[in-house]
């Protein structure tokens, strides 16, 4: 009976064609139209093109010389690196720790996963309050610990030098930290599921051979987790390239002093605020190219082992 299903191809086509058409209309057509748009002059979203750019590759020339684009690329690549080290790294440590406890594992799973279900806009507003200049949570803690310089003026007024968490010295931490925090739980859940799939027999055999906790982790857990870890890393890298909402809510258009651009926020600003749709399309093409290249590199570097 089963073999009959596979021999008769028409039902497969009936199910595949709608999805294929959907992808053509809503993914491939806009994608190729977007590439065409990069050569045109378009003064607003939805407006008709006013003709070709002169020269036609003007937007690509600008892409290579635009200092804000360089900043956006540098920040995005740094964010990608931080994602690998902190998002997946912290998720791995948390997963290994939670895997070793017997009581409360479910509680910690829920707690660590919780940030994922909160909207990025709400998180952005929350972290804006946490890092607020005057009276923000972090600055209040620093003040109560005596870590912020204060000066008593002749008028008797106490002047506090609040720390600006969004200035050039601190903005990377303030921007990246909430992004890391939000997605740690996502990778944590994937990794803990991977840990649950490792057979307990291996640990028992290792314990009989006298292997301590570290050796069991080093020689059993991590090698057995390699494939899941590789998937997490590829997801983290491609996810980092698309980060937009949280930094946009917290930093808006390139704050501070045009040093805070990411490729996503810069593309949005050019397209929707500056009405420079053709240049925004060009940045979008770069994001796609970057995504394809980096995910390929990640796939090759972190290729899942076939031995496991």
């Amino acid at each position, binding site marked *: 009976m089963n073999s009959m299903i596979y021999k008769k191809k028409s039902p497969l086509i009936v199910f595949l064609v709608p999805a294929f058409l959907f992808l053509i209309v809503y993914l491939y057509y806009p994608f190729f139209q977007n590439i065409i748009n990069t050569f045109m002059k378009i*003064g*607003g*979203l*939805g*407006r008709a093109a006013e003709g070709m750019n002169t020269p036609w590759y003007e937007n690509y020339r600008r892409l290579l010389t635009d200092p804000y684009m360089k900043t956006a690329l540098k920040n995005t690549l740094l964010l990608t690196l931080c994602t690998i080290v902190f998002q997946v790294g912290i998720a791995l440590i948390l997963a290994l720790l939670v895997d070793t406890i017997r009581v409360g594992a479910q509680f910690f799973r829920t707690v660590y996963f919780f940030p994922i279900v909160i909207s990025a806009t709400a998180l952005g507003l929350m972290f804006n309050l946490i890092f*607020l*200049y*005057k009276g923000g949570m972090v600055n209040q803690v620093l003040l109560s610990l005596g870590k912020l310089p204060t*000066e008593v*003026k*002749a*008028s008797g*007024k*106490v*002047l506090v*030098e*609040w720390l*600006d968490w*969004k*200035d050039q010295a601190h*903005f990377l931490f303030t921007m990246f930290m909430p992004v890391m925090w939000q997605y740690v739980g996502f990778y944590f859940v994937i990794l803990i599921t991977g840990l649950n799939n490792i057979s307990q027999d291996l640990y028992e055999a290792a314990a009989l051979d006298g292997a301590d906790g570290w050796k069991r982790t080093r020689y059993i857990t991590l090698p057995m987790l390699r494939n899941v870890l590789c998937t997490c890393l590829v997801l983290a890298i491609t996810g980092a390239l698309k980060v937009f909402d949280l930094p946009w809510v917290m930093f*808006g*258009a390139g*704050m*501070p*002093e*045009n040093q805070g651009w990411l490729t996503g926020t810069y593309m949005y600003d050019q397209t*929707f*605020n*500056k*009405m*420079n749709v053709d240049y925004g399309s060009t940045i979008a093409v770069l994001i796609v190219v970057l995504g394809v290249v980096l995910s390929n590199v990640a796939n090759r570097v972190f290729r899942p082992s076939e031995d496991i």
Partner: protein
Amino acid sequence: MKKALAMLLALVMVLSLGSVMAFADKSVTLNVVTSYGGDDGNRKNFENAVKAYEESTGNKVNDGSATSNEEWKAKVLTDFETGSEPDVLFYFTNADAEPFISAGKVVSIEEIRAEYPDYASNMKGSMMAVAADGKQYSVPSSGYWENMFVNKAVLADCGVEVPGPDYTWDQFLADCETIKEAGYTPIACSLVEVPHYWFEFMVMNNGTVGNHLDVPAAADDAVAAKWAAGLNDIKALYEAGYFPANTLTASDAETVELFNAGEAAFLIDGSWKVGYFTENAEDLEDFAIAYVPGKGERSASEAIGGISMGYFITKKAWDDPDKREAAVEFVSQLTSDETLSTFVTTEVTALINGAKPAGLNALQQSAADANANITAIAGAVQDLLTAEARGDLFANVQNIVTGKMSAEDALASAIALN
């Protein structure tokens, strides 16, 4: 028998469905977008007016109001361009509206009056904005003024007098120094988010109220030189440390709160902010409306103001037989003498009979007193720039004040986009 019964039941179902639909048709849902969102001083009045409209007509209003800023303006234009415009829009009536007016996406007053002769008949035609094609499209709401808010408690603590209509630039600089020395922030302003208030007055300070609405045609003409001098005045204030330490990373809301909390002395803002302080100030007596210091030929008694916003009915709503009357009724109710009187305290209106605001509070009275001393008024020159040019210019203010870009280069960039 069974067939007849089935037919009867089906008939009853169809008829009841039809009556339900007919009943549902009586209520129209209007999509409305205005700038009466966020911390707008008239938000409460607008919500009350919408509620009154819903109760009197049985219609529903989907209120998509938000705070007016460059991002909001861009979003409204994008909605028009992508075919998702609202039914009724409260928006700027200047060059900002030209993209959707020239695209034929809103209906002219003339066309509406052909069917509804009394539409906007309570407004002075001479005060209604005229578009580039010579037609009128919007029904004006209340006007606005921009001037200097002062925190009297801070000034008193620093031994500084509340500025009068003869306040000069040199006096202002001396006062700022005194205030800074006393440990307060002289000027509450987010240069990254709302540099335009200071831009308007600094440009006027380097010209006159008469030529304030001139727009540079080239980066090296006299008007551009005036604008550059104004931008350099802002830079001088920034370098002197008179703006908040985080002026390049703070939001407008943060710096306004700095002023409200008694940490800053001066704030240039508009008539819409009076409502904010009415609702949020601990003691309204601590605040007053004064004058922006004058320089050169400009006197401190000359200010920015006018009527810049109005209600548009979109073509989409006009072409929908169900929504046409609902939209006309909505605008008529929101711009009636009675409703507008609740929006107005000290602002001008285009009402033929004038607005009749109820008793004024301390800050509103202060605004009325200051306005009584205003000798001349000009509209905001930024309204004559295209959204692209304005966005570019104001985004570069942070580069100008930090010395990363000269005012002349920033103007050349903006003029190229205008």
